[in-house]
């Protein structure tokens, strides 16, 4: 009896210790960054693809914040990606090619759109919310399509001219500059996102996801917190869009379409939702597979992508993260 009691106490103490140490950096968390730097030296011919992967990781990471942490199911996240991309793109096409400020303005513009649209769509939940996020993205898509004079419409935004970063690092065709630029921006944004999810604010988001009624009952400002994370996520998505625009020096309507929102969702699900690192696994897996398939079979590569997705849905429940956790027998962390 006594013994049982003390074991219980020990277990609880261990849980508390684990809980209070959760925000500390673990060695494993250095892995993506080491891998990214190693990739630079191992695959010098693939840096353009690498830069796109890094920017897309940021986009999917931003989606993870709203979907994985706050439980806001959205199919319109491309809206913010696209606003960031077009903002950074139009600045560069109209004589302001400074990358860092362009990126920040893109992020702010996306955050503004996130704040305004979030204030409306976040009043709803479930399927209604899903549809409203879809509609916001669709409206922006049509806007970009119709504003041919400013955006180039279906032809894409032509004539972007990027200045060197800090006046020194020119964007080269091989993607050296683009790769490190994306890596540094991703690192800074990841650090910010990590801080947010481990703050008490971030914890309350998990609470909202798991049991919104209870969060209301304990007096948490649910609506305000949802709007805040939605806006923060929109800003990160906008920065990701800006990165893609600046490094490819082109913006097409594809940055705003449903396919992009859907792909982000798929990549996040492949990696694992609500783990902060799902994006770091899902995006490279998906984009490298896509690159390989398109190279091996340029005519029917979409078929192979589809087939692999079916495979993943059937056999990889919970994404790569879920499988790894099941293999090592760890319980699902909240």
């Amino acid at each position, binding site marked *: 009896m006594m013994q049982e009691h003390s074991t219980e106490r020990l277990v609880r103490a261990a849980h508390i210790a684990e809980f209070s140490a959760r925000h500390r950096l673990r060695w494993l968390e250095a892995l993506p960054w080491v891998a990214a730097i190693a990739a630079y030296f191992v695959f010098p*011919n693939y840096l353009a693809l690498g830069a796109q992967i890094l920017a897309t990781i940021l986009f999917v990471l931003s989606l993870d914040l709203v979907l994985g942490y706050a439980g806001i199911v959205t199919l319109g996240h491309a809206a913010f990606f696209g606003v960031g991309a077009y903002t950074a793109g139009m600045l560069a096409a109209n004589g302001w090619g400074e990358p860092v400020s362009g990126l920040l303005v893109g992020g702010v513009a996306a955050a503004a759109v996130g704040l305004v649209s979030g204030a409306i769509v976040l009043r709803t939940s479930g399927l209604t919310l899903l549809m409203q996020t879809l509609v916001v993205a669709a409206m922006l898509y049509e806007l970009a399509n119709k504003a*041919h004079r400013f955006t180039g419409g279906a032809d894409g935004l*032509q004539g972007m001219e990027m200045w060197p970063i800090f006046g020194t690092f020119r964007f080269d065709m091989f993607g050296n500059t683009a790769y490190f630029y994306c890596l540094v921006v991703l690192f800074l944004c990841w650090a910010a996102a990590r801080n947010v999810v481990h703050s008490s604010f971030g914890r309350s988001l998990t609470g909202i996801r798991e049991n919104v009624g209870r969060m209301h009952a304990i007096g948490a400002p649910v609506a305000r917190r949802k709007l805040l994370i939605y806006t923060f996520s929109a800003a990160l998505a906008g920065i990701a869009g800006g990165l893609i625009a600046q490094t490819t020096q*082109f913006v097409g309507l594809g940055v705003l379409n449903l396919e992009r929102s859907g792909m982000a969702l798929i990549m996040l699900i492949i990696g694992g939702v609500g783990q902060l690192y799902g994006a770091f696994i899902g995006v490279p897996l998906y984009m490298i597979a896509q690159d390989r398939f*398109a190279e091996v079979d340029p*005519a029917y590569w979409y078929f192979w992508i589809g087939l692999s997705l079916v495979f993943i849905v059937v056999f990889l429940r919970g994404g790569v993260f879920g499988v790894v956790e099941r293999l090592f027998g760890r319980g699902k962390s909240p």
Partner: protein
Amino acid sequence: MTLKGVLFGLVSVAAAGISQASAQTVKIGWINSYSGFLAQAGDQMEKGLNLYIKLHTKDLPPGVKVEFVRRDDTAAPEVGKRVAQELITRERVQLLMGIVASPVAAAVAPLTAEAKVPLVITNAGGVAITRISPYVVRFSFTQWHTALPIGAWSVKQGWKRGFSAVADFIPGHDAEGAFVKGFTDAGGQMLGTVRFPPATADYAPFVQRIKDAKPDVAFVWVPAGPAATAILKAIKDLGVREAGINVVSTHDLLPDEELPNIGAFGAGILTAGNYSTMGVRPANQAFLKAWDEEYKGKAIPNFTSVAAWDAASAVFDLIKKTNGKFTGDEAMKYFATVKLDSPRGPIAIDPATRDIIQDIYIRRSEMKDGKLINTDIDTMKAVKDPWKELNPPK
């Protein structure tokens, strides 16, 4: 794998790269729309290229090989730009070739200037693309080649009040501009214009706009392929032609491979184009014979297939002449001298603009032996791109 194994692998890959280079393999990046809304045009282009490669690889100098590295641009400019960049930096191709969609070509063109890698366009007809980079050469056509004369021809038929409906992207805008110029210069009067999304499936609202405007003649432009059949169906369903409105277009509205799908309704439409399978020329007869032997009646070539065929012919000539060793500048110098006897008639590259000089045919579609065909009713010889003459470089 051990470190030793990895190193060995890397060394053998590097060695393979070196030995390949010494065997003189010409790497050509082929950018096509295998998926997306222009996939059918992409398929036409692919078949034209493949046929030429199959028949003429044996003509290459001994020891010289041609390798086509093929990529899908999905008809989206951002994807096209990415694959072009990969072909240049990763595959180190000596030439880029292909491209169906004008927005893709416009996005790729600046890269060719930076990398000094020539781009040989086999379809994209956006008129200004060759101005973006000195490393772009075009074997297809511009919208001004075809849409400008059809404007003038419409007025000649006594149709004085016009309306234009085009797909809302580069070639559509070009076609509209060219038709309006040709039409109004000849004394016609435009009642209005409408533009619809390039990948739309529902043309009824736009076709209704044509009907409501009650013009004598409606100029309609869609990208060649299934869109042609779809918009003609809307024109039929809404009774546009029955209301006394004449329909005119470029060859994109009546591409040869869509004629069986369009059928009798497509008869009596005036179009301008650079190629029809009905053309009676020895080069065309030979081309059609080779085509039918290869595709056994399962495919019909169109102007896009012919442009890919001609471009492949010029590229093979370049390789023969240089034994596959050429810089981007040498290739461009060679292309400026190209003169070919094409299935579409004599063609040449204009050294001043790097755009094609070709005969343009005015055709009237008609039913013959139960089949819809395009019959040439007039030929304009050796037409240079009119837009470049109207808009000299600054």
